[in-house]
């Protein structure tokens, strides 16, 4: 490989390792979170270098957008005292020396096996590419996600659903003091939200034959939703409509699976002539659900700021503090 490419890779890897370490070792948690956000930014460059643009797209939307938003929001809610950490958060103590040795041992084992691997390996690339014609799409990553390994993806959508149920089961949190509405933030929303919707639709469509797909589109939409919530607070508690959309992706996916099982092929085995359309339907439903789930994970459930006992909307009727409500989990 050319020298200039190697220089680029070396700089990128050094920056990644340094940022990863600083995100874990910076005494100031806010600094650590910013370093983690930049880490995600550079990680998407690493995916590009490794020839995984689909992964890079997802990392760009999640690492740079959503993950940072979640972490910063939590830091704000923890307040000054809750966000304080030790001066040397990872300093060695006798107990930690054991953990460090174990981590180093694992790393040594992994290095030894990495060095023992052959430099070239066929992997599953050939079979995946050969079956592409029957998969309904021409992007092999989308084909893997929604056809070859559709089971995994079905369960993944289920896991996301469980995550948001987990957040809803928790007691509603006290609302943060709301800053005054900001005209510039409103402008930001008006410009960016339509664009995120368009680009998300574009990614969903283009995912059939080029890098993109439901997850990348969903992550982008979710980031748009986060902006919306910042400019004009949303109430995304477990209301019937929200629940319906959260379940939609999983339900459509499962219904398609059952239909294919009943009509012939087997669970989630798509007939090649309709596979493209089926995948697009599943992806569209999954994108909506995943996007809403991610926004709901960010929004959480808040009590009204003034009178903490009264839920701030009918949608939050189950959010009475102190009453863990099993009804919130259908």
């Amino acid at each position: 490989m050319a020298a200039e490419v190697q220089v680029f890779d070396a700089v990128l890897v050094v920056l990644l390792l340094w940022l990863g370490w600083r995100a874990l070792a910076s005494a100031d948690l806010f600094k650590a979170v910013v370093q983690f956000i930049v880490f995600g930014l550079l990680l998407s460059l690493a995916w590009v270098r490794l020839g995984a643009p689909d992964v890079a797209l997802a990392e760009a939307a999640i690492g740079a957008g959503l993950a940072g938003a979640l972490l910063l929001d939590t830091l704000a809610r923890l307040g000054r005292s809750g966000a304080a950490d030790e001066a040397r958060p990872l300093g060695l103590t006798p107990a930690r020396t054991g953990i460090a040795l174990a981590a180093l041992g694992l790393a040594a084992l992994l290095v030894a096996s990495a060095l023992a691997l052959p430099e070239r390996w066929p992997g599953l690339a050939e079979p995946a590419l050969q079956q592409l014609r029957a998969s309904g799409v021409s992007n092999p990553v989308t084909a893997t996600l929604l056809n070859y390994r559709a089971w995994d993806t079905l369960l993944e959508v289920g896991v996301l659903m469980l995550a948001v149920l987990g957040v809803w089961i928790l007691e509603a949190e006290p609302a943060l003091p709301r800053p005054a509405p900001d005209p510039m933030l409103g402008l930001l929303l008006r410009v960016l939200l339509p664009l995120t919707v368009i680009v998300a639709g574009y990614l969903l469509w283009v995912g059939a034959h080029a890098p993109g797909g439901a997850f990348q589109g969903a992550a982008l939409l979710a980031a748009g939703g986060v902006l919306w919530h910042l400019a004009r607070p949303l109430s995304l508690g477990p209301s019937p409509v929200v629940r319906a959309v959260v379940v939609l992706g999983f339900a459509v996916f499962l219904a398609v699976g059952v239909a294919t099982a009943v009509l012939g092929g087997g669970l989630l085995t798509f007939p090649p002539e309709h596979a493209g359309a089926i995948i697009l339907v599943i992806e569209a439903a999954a994108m909506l659900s995943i996007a809403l789930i991610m926004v709901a994970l960010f929004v959480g459930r808040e009590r009204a700021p003034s009178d903490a006992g009264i839920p701030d909307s009918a949608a939050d009727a189950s959010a009475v503090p102190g009453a863990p409500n099993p009804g919130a989990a259908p």
Partner: protein
Amino acid sequence: MPEWMTPALWIAAAAVLGTIALGLVRVERGPSNGDRMLAAQLLGTGAVAVLLLLARATDAPALLDVALVLALLACVAGAVFVRRIGVQPPERDEGRGPTRATEDGS
């Protein structure tokens, strides 16, 4: 394009990574959390530039979409920061050491 273009683009991309490294020093030093957020914003622009350069150097137009997504979301973290935390003056000037950790007492 002439054949010297590809190495030139790689060198440019590596150079932008170098300026990203410079920006990281500001993230490290602060002193205020606003400075850190600001530096992260600069690094986002740098990452977009790297992606654009690599898209041309490796002839992979799909990377333009990655750059587009990064550009769209460049301000999300900043907006969350401003709405939820806000710039706080550093507790010590030129905060070399931990700022909040001092109250920990451990």
